[in-house]
C-alpha cells in the first residue's frame, strides 16, 4: 500500500518521455495577456487580482526592494496556480517535487543575502547578533544566528513540499477509505464524504496560503536586506 500511495508523486512519463515539461509549463497558458483597454471578464479578473496582490506585497518595500516586484509576482502566481491545478483528480503537482522547490528557494534566498551583504554590509552582518545580548554569550549566538540564516532556504523548500504532499496524501487516503467503506457500511461513507469535502476546502486554502507564505518570506528577507 505504501507503493500505491506514493506513486502519484513520481514524475509522470508518457511513452517514456518526461511529461513534467508540459505539466510545469501549463499554468503559463492560463494567464491571459491582451492589449485592449477593456477585456473580457476573465482577463479583467486576472488583472485586478494581480494589481491587488502587487499592492499588498510591495508597498512595504523601499525603492530598491520594489525592483523585485516582477520576480515576486511571477513567483506567487506560479506557485498558486500550480498548487490549485494539483487539486484536480489524477493531476501531477510539480510543487511536490523537492527538486523544484529547492531550485526556487535557494537562488532567491541567496539573492537577498548577497544583496544585503553587498549594499549594506555592516547592517546585514549586524542581523547576526540580536540586541542586548550579554557579552559571554556573543560567540555562541553568532553561530546560532548563522545556522538559522543558512537553514532558511531549506526550510522554505521543505515547507512547501511537505505541506502540499501531506495534503494530497491525506486526500488519497480518505478517498480510498471511502471507497472500501461504500460496500460494507454505507452510513460511514456519508460521514467520510463530508470529511473529504472539508478537506478539499482546506486544501484549496492551503494551496493559496503556501504560495503566499513562500513569497512573503522571500520578501521579508528582501526587506531585511535592502
Amino acid at each position: 500500500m505504501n507503493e500505491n500511495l506514493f506513486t502519484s508523486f513520481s514524475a509522470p512519463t508518457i511513452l517514456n518521455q518526461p511529461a513534467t515539461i508540459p505539466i510545469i509549463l501549463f499554468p503559463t497558458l492560463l494567464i491571459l495577456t491582451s492589449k485592449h483597454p477593456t477585456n473580457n471578464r476573465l482577463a479583467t479578473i486576472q488583472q485586478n487580482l494581480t494589481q491587488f496582490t502587487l499592492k499588498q506585497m510591495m508597498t512595504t518595500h523601499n525603492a530598491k526592494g520594489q525592483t523585485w516586484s516582477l520576480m515576486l509576482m511571477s513567483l506567487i502566481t506560479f506557485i498558486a496556480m500550480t498548487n490549485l491545478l494539483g487539486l484536480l483528480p489524477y493531476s501531477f503537482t510539480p510543487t511536490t517535487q523537492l527538486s523544484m522547490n529547492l531550485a526556487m528557494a535557494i537562488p532567491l534566498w541567496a539573492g537577498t543575502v548577497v544583496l544585503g551583504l553587498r549594499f549594506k554590509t555592516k547592517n546585514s552582518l549586524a542581523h547576526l547578533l540580536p540586541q542586548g545580548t550579554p557579552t559571554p554569550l556573543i560567540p555562541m549566538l553568532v553561530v546560532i544566528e548563522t545556522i538559522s540564516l543558512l537553514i532558511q532556504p531549506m526550510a522554505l523548500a521543505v515547507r512547501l513540499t511537505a505541506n502540499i504532499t501531506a495534503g494530497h496524501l491525506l486526500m488519497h487516503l480518505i478517498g480510498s477509505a471511502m471507497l472500501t467503506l461504500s460496500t460494507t457500511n454505507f452510513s460511514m461513507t456519508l460521514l467520510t464524504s463530508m470529511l473529504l469535502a472539508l478537506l478539499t476546502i482546506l486544501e484549496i486554502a492551503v494551496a493559496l496560503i503556501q504560495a503566499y507564505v513562500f513569497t512573503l518570506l522571500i520578501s521579508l528577507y528582501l526587506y531585511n536586506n535592502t
Partner: protein
Amino acid sequence: MPQLDTSTWFTTIMTMLPTLYLIMQLKLLNTNHYQPPLTKNSNLQFHNTHWQPKWTKTCLPLSQPQQ
C-alpha cells in the same frame, strides 16, 4: 519516496527555470494595466469667465478712467 529519485531532478529544474523566470515574467509584463478613463481633472479649462475682456467696458463702468 519518489521525490528523492534524482534522475528526474535535472528535467524538473531545467523546465522550471525558464517557466518561472522567463515565461511567467513575460506574461506579467505584457498585461497592460490601463487607467480607467476620465480620471484626470477635466475642469482645468474652466476659468471664471463671466465676462470677456472686451466686455469689460460695458460690464464694469467703474473700471473706465473717470471723465
